[in-house]
C-alpha cells in the first residue's frame, strides 16, 4: 500500500534579490533542496529546524499553496499537483492547514460561527442555517462551547483562537493536516491544552499530521517520526525514539543539547554543544554538506560531497562523520 503522503526529491526555489550587471539577474534562494519522505495515514511526522531551514516552505508545497520547482508530492499514490489542478476543492478537503499565528489566520470581520460555516458552504453546499448544528459540534469538539459562534476572533484568547483554527481544519474531515508551528505563539500553560487536544483528535479521527515546529520538546511529545531539517535538506529522519535517543547527525545533537530543560540540577551538569556563527544564507549555501561551516567534525570530504541519507527506516542520517554513542542528557540517557 502506498503511504498517505510521499515527497520525492522536492525542490523549491524562490527568486531572490537582484544581482549582476544593472541588476539584470536574480539570485536564487534555495529554500527546499531535494527532500524525500513518506507519511502514513494516521501518523505524525514532526519537522524540526531553525529559521530558514525550509520547513514552512515544505509545508506550503504539500498544501499546494506553493508549486514545487522540481520533484513530486504524492497524495495516496497520486500526483498532488495533478489532483489539485483537476479539483482544488477535492484536494483541500483531503489536506488542511493550521497556521502559526491565530491572530492573523482568522478573519477579524467574521464571527467564529461564520468562519466555521465556510467549509460547509464551500465543500458541502450547505446553507449557513443548515450548518449551525455542525458548527456547534465542531466548537464542542475543540473544547469551546456552541455559544461562542456569535463572537468575533478578537474576543478570544490566543489559545481559544488556535482551537478555532483547528476546528476550521477539521470541518472537512481531512486525511492530513499540515500544522505550521501551531503552538509556538501560545503561553506554556495554554500550549499544553492545545497539544493534548491535537493528540486526542488524532486518536479519535485518525488523520495524519505534518507537524512543523522549532521546539524539540513539543515535537518529541507529539510525533511518531521526526525529520530534522537544515538549510533546505533533511539531515536526519527517524522514529521519535531513535532520533531522541540515538541521533547520529551532529546538527541534531547540537539542537538537542541547546534545548534548555527546566531542571536546575540537570542544567548545571549539562555540557552544551555551542555552535559557532549563524545559519548561512540559502542564496549561497556551502558546497557539500550544508552544515559543515558550523560543524566541529567537518573535514575535507564534507566540502566536496553532499552526504546522502544512510541508515534504515528507523533512523537515517546524512553525514560523513556520524556520531554513534547514545544521546545523553546530563549523565543519563534519554528516557523512552
Amino acid at each position: 500500500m502506498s503511504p498517505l503522503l510521499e515527497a520525492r526529491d522536492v525542490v523549491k526555489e524562490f527568486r531572490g534579490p537582484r544581482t549582476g550587471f544593472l541588476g539584470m539577474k536574480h539570485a536564487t534562494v534555495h529554500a527546499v533542496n531535494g527532500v524525500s519522505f513518506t507519511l502514513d495515514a494516521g501518523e505524525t511526522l514532526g519537522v524540526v529546524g531553525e529559521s530558514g531551514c525550509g520547513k514552512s516552505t515544505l509545508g506550503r508545497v504539500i498544501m499546494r499553496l506553493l508549486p514545487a520547482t522540481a520533484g513530486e508530492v504524492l497524495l495516496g499514490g497520486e500526483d498532488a499537483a495533478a489532483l489539485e489542478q483537476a479539483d482544488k476543492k477535492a484536494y483541500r478537503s483531503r489536506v488542511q492547514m493550521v497556521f502559526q499565528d491565530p491572530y492573523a489566520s482568522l478573519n477579524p470581520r467574521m464571527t467564529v460561527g461564520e468562519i466555521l460555516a465556510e467549509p460547509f458552504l464551500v465543500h458541502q453546499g450547505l446553507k449557513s442555517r443548515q450548518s449551525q448544528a455542525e458548527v456547534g459540534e465542531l466548537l464542542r469538539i475543540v473544547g469551546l462551547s456552541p455559544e461562542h459562534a456569535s463572537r468575533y476572533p478578537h474576543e478570544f484568547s490566543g489559545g481559544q483562537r488556535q482551537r478555532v483554527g483547528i476546528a476550521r481544519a477539521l470541518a472537512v474531515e481531512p486525511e492530513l493536516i499540515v500544522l505550521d508551528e501551531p503552538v509556538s505563539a501560545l503561553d506554556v500553560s495554554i500550549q499544553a491544552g492545545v497539544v493534548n487536544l491535537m493528540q486526542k483528535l488524532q486518536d479519535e479521527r485518525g488523520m495524519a499530521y505534518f507537524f512543523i515546529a522549532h521546539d524539540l520538546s513539543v515535537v518529541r511529545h507529539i510525533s511518531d517520526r521526526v525529520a530534522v531539517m537544515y538549510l533546505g535538506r533533511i539531515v536526519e529522519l527517524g522514529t521519535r525514539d531513535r532520533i531522541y535517543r540515538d541521533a547520529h547527525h551532529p546538527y541534531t545533537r547540537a539542537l538537542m543539547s541547546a534545548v534548555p530543560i527546566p531542571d536546575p540540577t540537570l542544567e548545571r551538569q549539562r555540557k552544551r554543544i555551542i555552535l559557532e556563527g549563524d545559519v548561512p544564507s540559502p542564496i549561497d549555501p556551502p558546497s557539500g554538506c550544508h552544515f559543515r561551516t558550523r560543524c566541529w567534525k567537518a573535514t575535507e570530504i564534507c566540502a566536496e560531497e553532499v552526504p546522502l541519507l544512510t541508515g534504515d527506516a528507523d533512523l537515517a542520517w546524512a553525514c560523513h562523520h556520524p556520531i554513534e554513542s547514545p544521546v545523553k542528557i546530563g549523565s543519563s540517557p534519554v528516557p523512552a
Partner: protein
Amino acid sequence: MARPLLEVSDLNVEFRTDDGPVQAVRGVDFSVDAGQVLAIVGESGSGKSVTAMSILQLLPPSASISGEVMWKGENLLEVKEPRIREVRGGEISMIFQDPLTALNPVYKVGDQIVEMIQVHGRVSRRDARDRAIEMLDLVGIPQPAKRVDQYTHEFSGGMRQRAMIAMALSCDPQLIIADEPTTALDVTVQAQVLELLTDLADRLDTAVVLITHDLGVVAGMADRVTVMYAGRMVEAGSTDDVFDGTGHPYTHGLLMSLPRLDSDVGAPLMPIGGQPPSMLSPPPGCSFHPRCPFAREDLGCMTEVPATLERSPGHVSACHRADELMADGALDHRRLVGAGRQAADTVSVTDDGSAPGTGTEGGGLER
C-alpha cells in the same frame, strides 16, 4: 549583611486606559545582590515586563507608579530626569527582546555604541570608537573593526542581539535588565547568547535581572527566581527551592504543563485549565483561584488575597494552602510527571512507585 544592589519594594503600577484603570503590577518586592542573576518569570500579561520598565522610568505617562526602587541609597522612582539618564545605560542597562526595534536602523551599529559611551563619560570620539570595537570583539562578533561601521540590517538576528549586549556592557553597568533577550532567537543561537551573557556577567561581576517566560532558561541561568501571575508575585526563592520544593500551585502548573526532553515519552502534559484573567477586572482573593485545582472556598482562596509567607529560609510563596500542599507532595512535579531520569546527585523522589501522571489532586489539572 551588605545591602542588596537593587531593592524593589511594594511596587505598584497602574495604567489609565479607555476601559478603566489596569493594575499591571500589584505590590511586587524583590532584590538583587551584586553579581547575582535574578529571573522574573511569568506569562503574557503577568506584569513582568512592566516591572522591568518601571525600574528605569521607561513607562509611558499613562502609568502611575508607587513603591520604592532603591538603588545606591536613592529611590529611582523619585529621582529627576538628569539623574535617571545617568543611571540608564551607565549604572543599569537594558537588553530588549527585539534588537531590530531596539537598535536604530539608520545609524551605524558602532555609532550607536559610541553615542552611549560619550553620553556617560568624557571620552574622545576615537577612544569611544576603540572601546566600541573592543566591546563587539568581547561579545564574539567576527571582524569587529569592519562590523562597527555596518548597519543593523547587515547583522543576523543573533549578531544584533550580541551587538545589543555589547552596547549594554559598554559603560560597565553594575546591573543589566534583560527582557526576554533570547525569545526571538533560534535555539542554537539562544544557547550562544545565554552562554555569552552568563559568562560576561560572571567575569565582570554584573548582576542580571532576567525577564523570561521560559523555565528552561531560568533553570540554566538564574540564582534566584520570582514567579509572577496577574501582576502579583506568587513565589520567590532560590532556583533550586522553586523547582524542587515548589511552593505555589501556579509554579507547579507551569512545570507540569511543559513538554520536556527528559520526561518519559508517554507522560501526558497537564495544562493549567481556564484562561489568564483580564487585568481590567482581576479575580478577587487569590488571582489564580479560578484556574487553581487546589482552590477551596472555605480557606478564603476566593475572597482573601493570600499573604506572602516564608516556606523555608529565603523561599516565599503567596498561597493559602502552600504549607499543607507542600507537606503532601502535591506540588512536587517530579513525582507527578515522572520526570524520568534523576540527576545523579538529587534525592530520588520517584521511588514511591507511583506511575507517571497519577497521584493526588494535581493529576486532574485539565479543566
